[in-house]
């Protein structure tokens, strides 16, 4: 998109001779450069103070032994060395990758399915659209608490129903069984995260010109052919953005694991933000170690972040 060119207009001459007091100030303010920096100053302050500075200090912290409120002691690469030789950290890496890949994959498939279904015409479709998106609007913490109760060992909904139907003799510990815990957490992630994909894909579907399908139909293309030759290619840019954004937010999302399993049983659901949290704020307060965990993951995230930054600016007509 073309950049906005600003025509600087001369101040009407009748005003110029009057010499009123605000004149000089207002003329100074008329200049784009002054006004631009003035307007952006608070935003820059926020970026620097609340993101750039903390991020830089996190890097410094990884080379320190540090607790909150006290100055750190420089220990070189010891934190990283300890991390890479720790089994817990390596497990967290594997878990994070699996958790993110499976979670995002399922959200993608279900989201695409939901979007296609909601894109069909039917009675009261708008109502269904609104309703299916509600899990997205619920605060994550509330969903997590709700699901923890649904999975409850003794009286949760799932065990309750399974026992009633005589499908199981003993209740299942969904969140503390080493083989089930990760799967259970992913179910919750998918439940709350699918609507985001649905919304994105639905918006994409509605942007595809109807004429394309009409033309394809005249040429005798089947519904499946229309899907794979028109729908899928047209949605590709949205696929990529949605997957990347979701990968960032899923892998870095701490709430579900923290509330549902707290990383357990025996680290089976330990993902990197939870590990960072435990190291930095659990008992020993090893801020340097915690920061190092997050930093190790940053290079992977930054690839997605840079790509999305470009795309988000392009979509908004940025320069």
């Amino acid at each position, binding site marked *: 998109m073309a950049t906005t060119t600003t025509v600087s207009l001369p101040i009407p001459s009748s005003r110029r001779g009057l010499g009123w007091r605000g004149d000089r100030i207002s003329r100074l303010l008329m200049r784009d450069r002054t006004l631009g920096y003035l307007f952006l100053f608070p935003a820059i302050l926020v970026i620097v103070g609340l993101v750039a500075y903390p991020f830089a200090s996190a890097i410094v912290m990884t080379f320190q032994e540090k607790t909150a409120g006290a100055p750190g002691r420089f220990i070189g690469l010891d934190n990283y060395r300890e991390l890479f030789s720790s089994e817990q950290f390596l497990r967290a890496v594997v878990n994070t990758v699996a958790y993110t890949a499976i979670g995002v994959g399922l959200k993608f498939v279900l989201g695409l399915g939901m979007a296609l279904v909601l894109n069909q015409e039917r009675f009261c479709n708008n109502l269904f659209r609104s309703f299916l998106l*509600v899990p997205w609007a619920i605060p994550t913490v*509330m969903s997590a608490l709700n699901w923890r109760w649904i999975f409850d060992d003794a009286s949760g909904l799932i065990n309750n129903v399974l026992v009633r139907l005589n499908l199981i003799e003993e209740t299942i510990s969904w969140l503390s069984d080493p083989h089930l815990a990760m799967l259970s957490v992913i179910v919750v992630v998918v439940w709350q995260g699918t609507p*985001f994909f649905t919304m*994105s894909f639905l918006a994409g579907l509605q942007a595809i010109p109807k004429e394309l399908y009409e033309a394809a139909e005249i040429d005798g293309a089947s519904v499946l052919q229309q899907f794979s030759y028109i729908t899928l290619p047209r949605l590709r840019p949205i696929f990529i953005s949605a997957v990347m954004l979701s990968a960032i937010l899923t892998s870095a*999302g701490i709430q579900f694991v923290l509330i549902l399993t707290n990383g357990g049983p025996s680290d089976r659901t330990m993902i990197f933000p939870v590990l960072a949290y435990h190291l930095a704020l659990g008992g020993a307060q090893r*801020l340097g170690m915690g920061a190092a965990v*997050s930093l190790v993951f940053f290079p992977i995230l930054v690839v997605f972040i840079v790509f999305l930054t470009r795309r988000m600016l392009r979509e*908004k007509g940025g320069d």
Partner: protein
Amino acid sequence: MAMRVNTQRRVFQGVGNGALLLMVLWTAIPFYWMVATSLKHDKEIYGYEATLIPERPTLDNYATVFRETPYLLFLRNSLAVAAGSTLLSMIIAVLGAYAIARLNFPGRALLARGLVFTYLVPTSLLFIPMFAMMSVLRLTDSLHGLIIAYLGFDVPFCTWLLMGYFRSVPVELEEAARVDGCNRVSALVRIVLPMSLPALVVVTFFSFTHAWNEFLYAHVFTSTTSARTVTTGLVNFMSQDVFFWGPLMASTVMSALPPVLMFLVFQRWVVKGLTLGGVKG
């Protein structure tokens, strides 16, 4: 032979209707369980007499929440933090977005990129240094601290969103106003802002619900009851064990309601604003 396209359509419509039913159930059942539990006596919640549908619905759990817990204080705190951070981020973002969208000065492309980049950096990469910083500044256990911390997310996002909208307001309108003697500031207030009302609604929705829903910072920066917001307050209830599922689900229902209602009211705008800038994925 391939079926006629019309027949295929009908088949897919049928499959779609079936799938829709499953999706509605998948979405609805967790809600149902949350609300149903909040309306049950303990007897119907635990043990052999546990029910799937509350037989004698009661509001006792809700009464317990208000009588025996500091839930009202949490609500007040959440409201204060959400209102404060929304107002501040709105002002900062309007100014910043206008500058990037309309003013010509060196470095604005770089700043725009910086803003989006910042928005995409997840808080779980920042909470440790932020905690250290807040401790030094003595802003832990304080609502002010939370309001400030939330700006780090709200400002970049709101600025990015408003930037796009401001660009879509025709420049000619503003130029006409300036010929009539408006300066930049009054052109912004009188022309651009009124025309960007939908964007302002979306921005308000996002920063308000973000503050309302935020958990990590609130949890990490707060250690006393006085500054707890709803999210960290409820998680704290859970870890205290004395407080059980009936009242907990009652408070969960109440805490989930405001953002859900806001979403349903503003949905049309929110979905548009979200399609690329989703907050949760």
